[in-house]
């Protein structure tokens, strides 16, 4: 029985019946240990722990709040970006875009490749505009006077006053920049039709009114034709910066680049002549550039007309007897390429434009390179109407004025008059998103959404439409401007979204033949663009060219002339509070954070201005009539003697911390000439040297490439046609018996990249140097802005820069002479970023292995591991590594220049996929490794191998001219493999020793033997051989 009996025991001691167990069995708690009381040691131990724990707990780490969704939106997954097709609209400037959002915040803008207008291109301003969304200076609420109020109060005030003014028969004026949105137009029409005395006036900060008028004279229709540079074999630009600041620059750059590429066995390219005063981006890309005075633009046009007319047997006109270098050649080439050529002028003088139209008509370019059927609708501003509005305001006739997203007090020449007389109107409203120069003077501030928060549509070119959709809920208590207008026109509960949708239903849905409106709408919204057929027929030139030419002959100036241009960064100044644009080096001058005046070498010598190698210069006093301003002088090679270049966009007084009082406002210098605002001042200009010293911030202070063939390799077309290797410099390393290519002698056997081998190709021929890639890179990679002082200390953080070199007249042996640029130099742009060398010199020298080589050919930077010896940067032959000299984030010192890392609002723009670097670490281009990783994950999820085009780097995506190609050269089918004509070594197909077959491809500094993975294609100029 006992075997059956279960024995329960509490512990092994009981089971074994130990002696010690028996001894204590009567006690409830076993008490093996001695006195449980706390000893002195315990007390000290606990006290020590307690104090240190309390101390540690007091050192609180900053609380970072992350609030989870209570109800997760269906289409938002943390860490998964969403993309929305939308439209960038800034005044008349337009671009079809795709907005990348993360967790509901727009963080990046890229071009919409579906657009037939911009074709996926963007420019620097478009790229930067995402930061303007998070501008601290934006109005957070509507205001009456200085008092923040609700929208109801605003509406009550505005409608009450409008009714009163209308009842009294007072003028109501709605002032805006060019409106390219048809739905906005219809909202405005609703508004103007509500009030009988209301009218709508459009003006443009940089006006094309002269062009509109000239076309009215030439064709009977006031329009701006659209151009197709891709069909042009010969391009002549007369002071027209069509690649830079022109209204259609994004599309022009795309088209132009296609004529400059020499891929796929192409051996022909366009020839580009440029006649201009300032060295513009366009002039820098020209094959032949002639510096002319602004007052000679007319003479150039007339002379060109006569030369072309003579050759074509047409009647010549009087005038244009001056001789200009290259003009005869230009005429010959134009005639030879009849029907496949284009002449463009950037002048706002209708007479010049008429002559240019006549030249194009003579050459038969209408219908081929120039289209009048689908005119560009991005510049409709009427200078005369605006001018009469100003006088109406002055005389008190205008009783109510609404400034719809425009800032004429700043960007109209008569802004000062508007500012003075604005109080005469009983109702002044501004819908500007910040209290700018105009809004601050208005009684009612009714802030509009940022375009990234808005619904809208746009018609940049007749028949080409683009939709805007909000990528974020409005950050502040703002209201869509169109909704305000609708509200004020009596619509009870205006909803601009339904308004746009309704318009599209009425305008396009029926004609589209789609079966379901929702499907049609969703498709339009998804694509972002929509095209309709255009039925209007081509127009015929009927202008009076001899009349125009006669009017032009009278201008003969001798004094200094001011030529006003738009800065490539801040443009018209509308986005002046955007540090990305201030820190974007001007493509030509490489100036950042500063407003300079460019003068020619000759004039500088005459006036006693000097620039040293560190951008030290003098302030000049520029006076034109009553206008007086002190501006630093930059001596600019290529500047026409007798002319001064100065840009608009600066000198804003109410713009927020970033740009307040930076530079001077030169809009007042624009004066009406022939009924439109002229951007040249040809008389009464005085420039005096104040001898006050000043230092400009430039990111590049040495301008020539010192004849170094291993840096820049270029040639001319004729030589290229004979030998595609023309211009190539192939260094050789001497062995005792032989000379071999550098890199073939190596102690290392080199890497094998078994999966991918990332590489980049950059075509120097199609890179226009515009700089949109720089801004794209900054936004994508959270690159810190450092401000003027730090740039003067040569510490800009840009991962990608564009080296701009001027040619020099000196011989290669004259090393001092080579430092001096030619008077009218040839220019070459070279985007420069980490070259991801296969034998990277930075990797070997890092003591802590913080920069290493990936298995895919990337040179990687591990910020966490970096201790900041800067040895890697010193040893980088390309000087592309950037060191965090200070803490650029959460640092009061960089609060103004780097809001993206220093304000709660600004931080929303940061790309969460890229670490914000801390002080003391090195950083550099990563080939957008976060994009590579995300593409890998996507393909993995889709259970496929990666394919070409899965990874597009930020710079590549932003390049309107397609000069940057990135991809995997292990993949024989990739675009880059084909472009570079990569031939694998059959014994080591994935090794680094791939042969690059493209005769134009070279690596910079090949002789150093670091074997970069960035390849450049030679620059080929379409010039006569002797000139090269």
């Amino acid at each position, binding site marked *: 029985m006992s075997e059956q009996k279960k024995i329960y025991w509490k512990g092994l001691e009981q089971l074994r019946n130990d002696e010690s167990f028996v001894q204590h069995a009567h006690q409830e708690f076993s008490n093996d240990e001695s006195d449980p009381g706390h000893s002195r040691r315990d007390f000290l131990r606990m006290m020590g722990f307690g104090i240190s724990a309390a101390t540690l707990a007091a050192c609180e780490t900053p609380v970072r709040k992350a609030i989870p969704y209570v109800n997760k939106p269906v289409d938002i997954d943390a860490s998964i970006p969403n993309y929305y097709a939308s439209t960038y609209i800034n005044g008349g400037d337009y671009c079809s875009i795709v907005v990348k959002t993360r967790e509901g915040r727009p963080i990046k803008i890229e071009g919409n490749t579906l657009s037939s207008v911009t074709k996926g291109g963007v420019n620097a301003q478009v790229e930067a505009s995402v930061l303007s969304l998070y501008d601290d200076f934006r109005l957070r609420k509507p205001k009456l006077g200085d008092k923040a109020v609700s929208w109801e109060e605003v509406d009550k005030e505005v409608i009450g006053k409008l009714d009163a003014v209308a009842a009294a028969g007072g003028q109501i004026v709605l002032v805006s920049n060019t409106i390219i949105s048809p739905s906005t137009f219809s909202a405005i029409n609703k508004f103007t039709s509500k009030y009988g005395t209301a009218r709508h006036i459009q003006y443009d900060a940089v006006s094309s009114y002269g062009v509109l008028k000239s076309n009215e004279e030439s064709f009977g229709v006031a329009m701006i034709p659209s151009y197709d540079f891709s069909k042009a074999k010969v391009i002549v630009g007369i002071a027209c910066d069509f690649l830079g600041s022109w209204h259609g620059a994004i599309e022009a750059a795309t088209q132009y680049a296609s004529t400059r590429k020499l891929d796929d066995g192409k051996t022909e390219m366009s020839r580009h002549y440029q006649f201009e005063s300032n060295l513009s981006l366009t002039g820098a890309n020209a094959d032949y550039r002639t510096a002319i005075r602004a007052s000679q633009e007319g003479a150039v046009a007339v002379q060109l007309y006569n030369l072309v007319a003579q050759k074509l047997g047409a009647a010549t006109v009087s005038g244009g007897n001056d001789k200009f270098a290259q003009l005869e050649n230009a005429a010959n080439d134009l005639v030879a390429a009849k029907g496949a050529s284009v002449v463009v002028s950037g002048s706002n003088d209708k007479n010049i434009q008429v002559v240019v139209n006549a030249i194009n008509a003579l050459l038969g370019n209408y219908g081929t390179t120039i289209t009048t059927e689908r005119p560009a609708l991005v510049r409709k501003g009427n200078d005369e109407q605006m001018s009469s509005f100003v006088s109406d305001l002055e005389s008190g006739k205008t009783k109510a004025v609404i400034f719809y997203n425009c800032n004429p007090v700043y960007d109209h020449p008569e802004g000062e008059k508007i500012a003075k007389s604005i109080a005469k109107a009983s109702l002044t409203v501004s819908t500007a998103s910040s209290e700018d120069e105009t809004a601050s003077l208005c009684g009612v501030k009714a802030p509009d959404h940022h375009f990234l928060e808005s619904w809208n549509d746009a018609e940049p070119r007749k028949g080409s439409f683009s939709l805007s959709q909000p990528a974020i809920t409005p950050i502040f208590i703002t209201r869509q401007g169109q909704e305000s207008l609708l509200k004020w026109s009596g619509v009870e509960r205006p909803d601009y979204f339904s308004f746009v949708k309704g318009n599209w239903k009425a305008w396009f849905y029926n004609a589209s033949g789609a079966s379901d409106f929702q499907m049609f709408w969703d498709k339009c919204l998804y694509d972002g663009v929509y095209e309709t057929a255009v039925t209007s027929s081509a127009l015929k030139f009927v202008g009076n060219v001899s009349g125009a030419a006669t009017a032009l002959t009278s201008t003969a100036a001798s004094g200094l002339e001011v030529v006003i241009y738009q800065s490539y960064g801040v443009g018209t100044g509308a986005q002046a509070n955007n540090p990305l644009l201030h820190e974007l080096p001007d493509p030509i001058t490489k100036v950042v954070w500063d407003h300079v005046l460019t003068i020619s070498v000759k004039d500088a010598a005459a006036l006693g201005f000097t620039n040293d*190698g*560190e951008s030290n210069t003098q302030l000049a006093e520029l006076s034109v009539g009553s206008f007086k301003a002190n501006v630093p002088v930059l001596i600019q090679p290529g500047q026409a003697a007798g002319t001064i270049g100065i840009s608009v966009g600066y000198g804003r007084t109410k713009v927020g911390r970033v740009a307040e009082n930076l530079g001077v406002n030169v809009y007042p210098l624009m004066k009406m000439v022939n009924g439109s605002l002229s951007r040249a001042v040809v008389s009464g200009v005085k420039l005096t040297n104040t001898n006050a010293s000043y230092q400009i911030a430039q990111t*590049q*202070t*040495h*301008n*020539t*490439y*010192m*004849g*170094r063939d*291993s*840096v820049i390799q270029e040639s001319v077309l004729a030589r290229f046609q004979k030998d595609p290797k023309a211009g190539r410099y192939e260094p050789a390393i001497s062995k005792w018996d032989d000379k071999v290519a550098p890199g073939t002698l190596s102690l290392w056997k080199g890497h094998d990249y078994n999966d991918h081998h990332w590489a980049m190709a950059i075509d120097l021929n199609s890179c226009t140097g515009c700089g949109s890639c720089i801004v794209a890179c900054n936004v994508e990679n959270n690159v810190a802005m450092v401000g003027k002082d*730090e740039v003067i*200390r*040569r*510490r*800009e953080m840009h991962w990608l*820069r564009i*080296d701009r*070199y001027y040619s020099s007249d000196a011989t290669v042996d004259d*090393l*001092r002479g080579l430092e001096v640029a030619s008077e009218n130099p040839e220019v070459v742009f*070279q985007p*420069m970023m980490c070259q991801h060398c296969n034998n990277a*010199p930075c990797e*070997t*020298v*890092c*003591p*802590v*292995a913080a920069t290493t080589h990936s298995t895919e050919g990337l040179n990687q930077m591990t910020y966490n*591991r*970096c*201790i*900041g*010896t*800067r*040895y890697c*940067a*010193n*040893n980088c*032959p*390309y*000087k592309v*590594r950037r*060191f*965090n*000299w*200070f803490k650029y984030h959460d640092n009061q010192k960089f609060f103004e220049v780097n809001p993206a890392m220093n304000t709660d609002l600004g931080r929303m723009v940061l790309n969460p996929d890229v670490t914000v670097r*801390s*002080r*003391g*670490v*090195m950083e550099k281009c990563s080939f957008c490794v976060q994009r590579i990783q995300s593409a890998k994950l996507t393909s993995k999820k889709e259970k496929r191998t990666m394919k070409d085009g899965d990874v597009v780097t930020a710079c590549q995506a932003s390049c309107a001219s397609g000069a940057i190609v990135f991809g995997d050269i292990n993949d024989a089918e990739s675009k880059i493999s084909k472009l570079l004509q990569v031939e694998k070594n059959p014994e080591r197909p994935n090794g680094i020793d791939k042969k690059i077959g493209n005769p134009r491809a070279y690596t*910079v*500094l090949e*002789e*150093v033997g*670091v074997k970069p993975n960035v390849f450049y294609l030679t620059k080929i100029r379409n010039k006569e051989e002797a000139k090269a």
Partner: protein
Amino acid sequence: MQVTSTLRETLVTGGKSVADVSHDISRQVEGKPTRSWWAAFGISLVLLVFGAYSCWMLLWHGVGVWGLNKTVGWAWDITNFVWWVGIGHAGTLISAILLLFRQRWRMSINRAAEAMTIFAVICAASFPGFHMGRLWLGFYWALPLPNTFGSLWVNFNSPLLWDVFAISTYFSVSLVFWYMGLIPDFAVIRDRAVKMGHMTRARIYNALSFGWDGAAKTWMRYESVALILAGLSTPLVLSVHTIVSFDFATSVIPGWHTTIFPPYFVAGAIFSGFAMVLTLLLVTRKVFKLEDYITIYHVELMNIIIIITGSIVGVAYITEFFIAWYGQVDAEYYAFYNRATGPYWWAYWSMMTCNVISPQLFWFKKIRTNLMATFILAAIVNIGMWFERFVIIVTSIHRDYLPSSWTMFHPTIYDIGQYIFTFGLFFTFFFLFAKFFPVINMAEVKSIIKSTSEKK
């Protein structure tokens, strides 16, 4: 046939006896600090405090307080580093190589020279520390310590890492060598203190001397250890600056990428080291009245070393230029052209004047035996050697391969402050040393008193 042996040069003058040696040298330690000592020490402290403020600013705000930029990543920091390391070479050379070569004239100068070495190396080491962006991590990440990062090791390919090993080895060997030499002398001071009744001092110096008993066996061990350490440190004299030169020689930057750097740097280091030893000793012998121990003969011998090494350095400069021309590589050619004629021409020509031209004056016996002339020329050599490092570092990188990145370098007050910091540190240490430690190796000098001192 009669053999006439040449007369030995007199190394100690004034007819000193062994007791005199103990007395002359120990009394500096035993007496109260003089007024001039306080003044000098005070100035050093002021420099140190100002320098410490610069260090603080650097650590608090970042390396950006210096004048460095995207192109010139090293300037005064590494210039000062190499300069101080160079100065630190004379000590070991004197104590190790000259010991092996049985150059007995070294005996009265080796103590101070070794002390100078140690302090100079400490000063030098401060620069690689402070120049780091993240010193708080760098000071231990640069060491090959076992860790939990996976385990993540240092990069053994990097010359900076070799520097870490080279400098730390050099420092520890020098320190041990120096301290070991001090032990018998501490015992002398202890014994004198006992006699004088200063028991506190006796206790302290007893501890410092590790209870030295002066037994024959102890002396024997002392001699053997000295010889072993001399043997160990001899290669270090050559290796340290060789490795420092690798920081540049192994890079790809024109002007740095030069195979002659190792011998050129070692010669330069000895050159500047002797100049610094002279500068310090000329002052010390005057202040501490040690003219009988550090004689004109010593000065002259050191000056001869300066002519030799200065000429080697001069030949190296010219060789670099010849190769730049002979090699016909664009960037290399321009780097040297720019050195001599570019925006930093003044630095280059200061270097040439101070290092190559002015030391040639020592060919004249009158000049090399003149104390004032020696003092001035030694100072000039040290200035020249500072410029040499500045020229190599800054003029090479400020205009390297891509002209788009060419910049200038402008030092800020904190660059200067950091340099002053090391001066403050060096002299504070040196004056403490001079006051509390015997500045001349009594034990060794006593060994030559019988044979080579001037008889009364």
